[in-house]
């Protein structure tokens, strides 16, 4: 079980919860205002989602309080897989469209 020394009380978890709700509100506002064109909107929403996921992983899932080895192995391996997926899926899908395959 994780070390309880880091548990400075439940207060920080309520703050994280509030921050997540606030960020969700910002996302909904951006979605309704449609300030950006779709590609930029996708990028902005993805950045906000990554911030929210970092809060959930770090605090709610307690990864922030695990050993450095565990933190780095998990974050690096999953991020590396997503980067590989990004560089394989998108160019290949784009190539299929340009080749005119129906």
């Amino acid at each position, binding site marked *: 079980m994780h070390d309880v020394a880091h548990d400075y009380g439940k207060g920080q978890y309520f703050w994280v919860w509030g921050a997540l709700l606030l960020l969700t509100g910002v996302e909904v506002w951006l979605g309704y205002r449609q300030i950006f064109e779709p590609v930029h909107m996708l990028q902005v929403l993805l950045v906000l989602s990554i911030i929210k996921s970092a809060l959930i992983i770090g605090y709610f899932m307690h990864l922030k309080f695990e050993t450095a080895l565990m933190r780095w192995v998990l974050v690096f391996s999953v991020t590396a897989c997503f980067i590989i*997926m990004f560089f394989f899926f998108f160019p290949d899908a784009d190539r299929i469209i340009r080749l005119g395959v129906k």
Partner: protein
Amino acid sequence: MADAVLEHSAAPAHGHAGEFEQPLFGAYSKKVGMWLFLASDSLTFGALLFAFSYNRIYTAWPTPFGKESIINATIMTACLLSSSLTMVLAVFASQRHDRAWTRNWLLATMAFGTAFIVLHGMEWTHLIHEGLALPGFPQSIEHGSGEYAKVSASVPQFAATFFGLTGMHMLHVTIGVIYLGAVALRKWFLPILAAIYIAAFFAIPADSVFHYGVHVLLVGLIVAGIILFLKPKDYDAYDVEVSGLYWHFVDLVWMFIFPLVYLMSTRV
């Protein structure tokens, strides 16, 4: 073994019989196992989200979600975020060995999760009723004449990615609720789950996709029954923490689905 870390501290000096190796990540094996499962599961959702994003950018994408859908999805998001908070409180209670409050917070988490499933089910039902459907879905009388029938016909990728992504997530939430129910109530949860399954099966109309989807509860009942009877145990703080990891992951995935699927298809 769940208590590997604790047992190690009491282990004899190096080289003696019965000594345990240092855990690789400084954490007990169940937690490492759950983290590895979640890492692999994140790739499943990652592939689905990449497919959705690709279609969203490169296709003339419909924007069918009006104010009602966005409000509904925002409430669903709030439910999941609140469930994560109650899950954290359940973990704290379990570390204090406070059984009553552990169970109460777990039940609160399940209630939020169930609210999410019900709201999502209502959203699906509305969309299907309005004509958004996949070829395998049961056909209602009104099917094909609703507001979204044109969307299904002109951009079939929309229905495929929407139902694929949100359906996969709803399945994970349902499994999560069953998992938490087994941890909170142990064998007492089985008759409750059986009653919910039977009630849902007879209450949901035969032309609804959930009339077939509800069989997930039956599969969950069988699996939970096998586990609870083969290895009956009093779930401790380690188990609650590991179940919490799964639940927070379900919440985490929705943090990507909500903006990408709903907010990127908003009809202003």
